[in-house]
């Protein structure tokens, strides 16, 4: 495979600053050198490449938009998005790791935590000395997290947690879990540390998607956590949803990365695979597929770029993030499927990245709000009529 040279049909680099380009190119190189060579092996084995964690931390990939005083890069949202794009070009599972650590663990501690919690956890998480996870989804409450049954009860010396979370990325690996539970009927965030009595995090197995990522259950049985581990500024469903907005923003960019990997692979393959004495890229049907791919990638790039600029100005609406997540993941999955077609039988092999991306994107389409839920979120926004129930 020739080295990835980027996909920029509309000269969008002209709209990026020098440092944004440098961030992207640095992560791009990192992915090509450290992720791509090992990812298929981990995917097949169903393991997360643990040795990447210190390398990712050294590069500064965890919580890079947070303030420098916590050891973070304090970069803007466009640079953050480009970083996510490149990571997911490597693998959705690796991007998920970074998304969870940054958007779903460091962000809530930063936004809802006490000064002590921030000072204690943020540098550790930034330097990869601690891993975090985010527990919202439950076996019986996915798209409707507000119905959660996990409960916290005030006791002497802290809170007693009871309940179970499911589908939790990094759960088994995590040193700290941001867990959402109802305290007197109101949703609150709690920090649950690994090893706390009554807390277990068994890994879920049997996934056909996101295999290079650890997914776990979190089980709380009379788990007593100290009072200081409540996120004091959290309150209501809005708090976890604010976290999801951060992570969804990264996913919208990440999906472009997967799509680029599939398009790039399909384009190179189509130019070199000969059938009927010609490269298959010379057939109109193949060209149409490739054109469709690059067009959708270009549209997604434009969408994300403006989304990022709005986010940097604090003007972004969560419904706009929903639109980019919904659109970009949908098209990335379509692109992965069509790339698989172009590669024919080779498309199903782990020698090429497309089947892995296609399988990964099935998860990405569902998590952080399913495609349907984002449809309803935007639907409510434009009609004023909620159609969830």
């Amino acid at each position, binding site marked *: 495979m020739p080295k990835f*040279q980027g996909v920029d049909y509309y000269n969008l680099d002209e709209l990026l600053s*020098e*440092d944004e*380009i*440098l961030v992207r190119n640095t992560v791009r190189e990192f992915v090509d050198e450290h992720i791509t060579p090992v990812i298929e092996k981990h995917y097949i084995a169903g393991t997360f490449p643990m040795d990447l964690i210190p390398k990712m931390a050294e*590069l*500064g990939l965890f919580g890079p938009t947070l303030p420098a005083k916590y*050891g973070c*890069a304090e*970069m803007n949202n466009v640079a953050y998005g480009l970083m996510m794009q490149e990571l997911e070009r490597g693998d959705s599972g690796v991007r998920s790791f970074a998304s969870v650590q940054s958007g779903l663990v460091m962000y809530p501690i930063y936004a809802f935590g006490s000064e002590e919690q921030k000072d204690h956890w943020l540098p550790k998480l930034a330097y990869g000395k601690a891993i975090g996870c985010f527990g919202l989804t439950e076996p019986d409450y996915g798209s409707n997290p507000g119905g959660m049954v996990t409960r916290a009860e005030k006791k002497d010396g802290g809170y007693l947690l009871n309940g179970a979370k499911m589908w939790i990325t990094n759960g088994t690996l995590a040193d700290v879990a941001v867990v959402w539970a109802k305290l007197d009927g109101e949703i609150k965030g709690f920090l649950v540390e690994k090893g706390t009595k009554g807390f277990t995090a068994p890994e879920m197995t049997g996934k056909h998607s996101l295999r290079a990522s650890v997914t776990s259950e979190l089980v709380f049985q009379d788990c007593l956590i100290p009072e200081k581990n409540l996120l004091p500024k959290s309150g209501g469903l809005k708090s976890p949803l604010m976290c999801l907005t951060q992570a969804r923003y990264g996913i919208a960019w990440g999906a472009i990365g997967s799509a680029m990997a599939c398009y790039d692979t399909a384009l190179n393959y189509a130019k070199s695979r000969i059938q009927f004495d010609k490269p298959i890229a010379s057939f109109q049907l193949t060209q149409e597929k490739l054109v469709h791919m690059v067009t959708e990638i270009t549209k997604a790039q434009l969408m994300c770029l403006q989304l990022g600029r709005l986010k940097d100005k604090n003007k972004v609406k969560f419904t706009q993030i929903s639109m980019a997540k919904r659109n970009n993941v949908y098209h990335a999955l379509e692109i992965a499927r069509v790339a698989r077609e172009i590669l024919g039988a080779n498309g199903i092999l782990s020698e090429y990245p497309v089947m892995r991306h296609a399988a990964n994107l099935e998860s990405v389409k569902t998590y952080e709000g399913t495609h349907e839920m984002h449809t309803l979120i935007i639907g409510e926004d434009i009609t004023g009529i909620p159609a969830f129930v």
Partner: protein
Amino acid sequence: MKIAVCINHVPDTETKVKVGADGKSIDRAGVNFIINPYDEFAVEEALRIKEKQTGEVVVLSLGGDTHKETLRKALAMGVDKAVLLKDDTPRDSYSVAAALSAALKELAPEVVLFGKQSIDSDDAAVGLMVAEMLGWASVAVAVKVEIADGKVTAEREIEGGHEKVEATLPVVITAQKGLNEPRYPSLKGIMAAKSKPIEEKPPAPAQNRAEVVEMRKPPAKSAGKIVGTGADAVPELVRLLHEEAKVI
């Protein structure tokens, strides 16, 4: 200690270059440019010397505004200062070396690092010409560098082995692959580099001694031939290599 590194902004090794309309330069459209890979070893080495002995690392690049991208990358890796000798005119190695040595004379570093060659025109000449123009010692194709007590001890790659050399400072060193493993600029480093200015200066005017008159790509390879398979094909293959290709 003051250390200078001269770095170039060159087409990515993976880029398929085309000859431009003028027939003597490359078509830059759609070409990704990167820091010259050998220069990256030079920057890394400079940073390691600085980290061991304290001091300052200054990078210089001669070229147009696009070279700022490469200077910015060096700043993000941890370099302290960057100077762009701003000039878009085509130059030969002599003319580049003359401009760089003039700028270096003013800067007065104790160590100057270059990549052993720039992968765009592959002359492998500039670093050593600069040493000559400055009247300094030079160590070319270094794979190990140690600096102590006003002296450099370096290992050079030579055909079939290594050579250990010593020289007194000031010195010009050109870096070979294997000298070190260059670091990535960290995201924090990239953000910090935003506040480091790039100083722009006009270089000494071009005084080319050689001129590119034509550039062309090698002729396209003709299709290969399968002589046969298995051991039976070997005698025929040997005969063809000997009689037709005349390589054995």
